[in-house]
């Protein structure tokens, strides 16, 4: 019997059968706890249904019972790859509510820390894109540099991953000479490694074949999905909170916003790569222009007094007690403050009814918002590209699930 050559290996359309694949919740390739039920036609994804919430920790509910200073550690655990941005974003939200004037030096120090955090965030994302395309070497090199940034955090606040850095009003102490030495060491060593990493992948045939045209999204769809951060910029929209609504003196610095054109994995990689270079530029400018002055604002109701004062000064003792017990009242008000987090517009919508805790605190978590476009982005692509798309979107489970 003769068979039509073109039909070999194909089932007739009416008998087409799909298979279902559970990707996750705990799959080593997804770098976090994400579940996706994939409807597969061979190795092509027809439909995807993400399930999230595996590490939901009720931060918004918890925040309604906590004094303002005690909410900072909660923000650490949103995007734990760039915890200082979350911490400082939260401090600035409270300062906005209080109407506190922040000294220039504090603002510049904050910029340095936030840009270091952005570098570590992008660095993990890009290193992992490399790993998912089969290039483990760059990952190891970049992680050495991430270690150096964590040592800088350690010198400044004593913690590494979940930093709880700074206070409402500024920093708990000025940067030590050792911290400065580490920052300068980082600024000297990191560009070399980053350049080397870039050379490994940027024009690499294998890497380009794997990433160009994969997991793309158009600018229109990205905006409609409320994308923000590097993912939106990779699609070609130049929205950056640091420029649109400058906070912490970002208007003083000269930097460019890199944008992509296709919104695919390669563009996201390149945008993040360029942003790291721009972050380095900002850090250098901030160090050069760093003014003298106090390292915290005058907000005795919120800023812990030095220990000697607590023992020898009545007012300091009262403030110390009130801050530690969280008994300080806050003005009534409704405030929204956003910062450019590692993944995009990280917003804090705070309603205060004048009590010791927020009446309502909503986190605008960029991950949560753009991850919903994931099924659309991987539709019709291969399974291995879906993994790559997820890591290039930099979906962080902590930020996704709050």
């Amino acid at each position, binding site marked *: 019997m003769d068979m039509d050559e073109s039909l070999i290996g194909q089932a007739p359309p009416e008998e087409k059968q799909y298979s279902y694949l559970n990707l996750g919740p705990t799959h080593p390739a997804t770098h976090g706890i994400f579940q996706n039920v994939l409807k597969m036609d061979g190795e092509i994804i027809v439909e995807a249904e993400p399930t999230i919430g595996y590490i939901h920790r009720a931060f918004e509910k918890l925040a309604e019972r906590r004094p303002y200073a005690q909410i900072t550690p909660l923000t650490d655990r949103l995007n734990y790859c760039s915890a200082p941005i979350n911490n400082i974003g939260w401090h600035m939200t409270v300062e906005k509510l209080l109407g506190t004037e922040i000294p220039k030096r504090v603002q510049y120090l904050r910029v340095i820390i936030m840009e270091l955090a952005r570098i570590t965030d992008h660095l993990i994302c890009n290193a992992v894109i490399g790993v998912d395309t089969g290039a483990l070497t760059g990952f190891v090199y970049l992680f050495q540099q991430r270690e150096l940034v964590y040592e800088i955090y350690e010198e400044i606040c004593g913690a590494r991953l979940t930093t709880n850095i700074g206070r409402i009003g500024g920093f708990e102490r000025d940067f030590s000479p050792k911290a400065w030495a580490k920052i300068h060491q980082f600024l000297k060593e990191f560009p070399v490694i980053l350049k080397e990493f870039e050379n490994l992948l940027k024009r690499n045939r294998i890497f380009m074949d794997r990433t160009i045209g994969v997991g793309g999204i158009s600018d229109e769809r990205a905006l409609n999905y409320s994308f923000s951060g590097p993912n939106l910029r990779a699609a070609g929209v130049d929205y950056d909170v640091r420029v649109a609504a400058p906070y912490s003196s970002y208007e003083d610095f000269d930097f460019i916003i890199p944008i992509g054109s296709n919104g695919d994995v390669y563009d996201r990689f390149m945008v993040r790569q360029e942003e790291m270079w721009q972050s380095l530029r900002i850090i250098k400018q901030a160090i050069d222009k760093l003014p003298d002055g106090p390292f915290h604002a005058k907000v005795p109701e919120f800023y812990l007094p030095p220990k000697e004062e607590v023992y020898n000064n009545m007012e300091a003792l009262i403030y110390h007690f009130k801050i530690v017990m969280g008994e300080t009242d806050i003005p009534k008000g409704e405030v929204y403050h956003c910062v450019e987090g590692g993944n995009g517009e990280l917003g804090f919508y705070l309603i205060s009814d004048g009590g010791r805790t927020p009446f309502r605190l909503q986190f605008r978590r960029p991950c*949560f918002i753009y991850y919903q476009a994931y099924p659309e982005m991987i539709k019709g692509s291969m399974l291995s590209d879906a993994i790559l798309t997820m890591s290039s979107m930099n979906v962080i489970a902590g930020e996704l699930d709050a």
Partner: protein
Amino acid sequence: MEFSAEDKVINTLKEKYEGDVLHIESPYNFLTITLKKERIVEIIKYLYSHPETGFKYLTSIGGVHYPELNQIAVVYQLHNLIANLRVRLKIYLPVENPVTETITSIFAGANWMERETYDFYGVNFIGHPNLKRILNVDDMIIFPMRKEYPLEDQTREDKNDSMFGR
């Protein structure tokens, strides 16, 4: 007279929906408009497409529970990226039956934001393609962010926090 950007938004809105505007304020330079709940989707669509306003970016949707008012507020924050202008729209719904319409037809990104609001406050968005719990477990029977649900188990007797103002 030169109108500020905020005035332009207010005027554009009032041109067509004067009767729906309940209250206008601008706390911390963030234009906040409280609206009647009936025509919220129509108004958002109008603000989205009108050339004077052009709020084409949805920043967030969130719920707020006011136990004294016995109401749940749904807060929409929109952004005009070109003019760099933000607006916050609020509607108040009764706690017993918080129902409104979905804006997923305008913003694809509203999908999960509305699901989250449903999950935590029980706000029912009519017309939503997939309105089910998103962060909490499916068999949960309460809407946990409502104020009547305390954070900790209140039946515990081994903890005495009365000294700490809790």
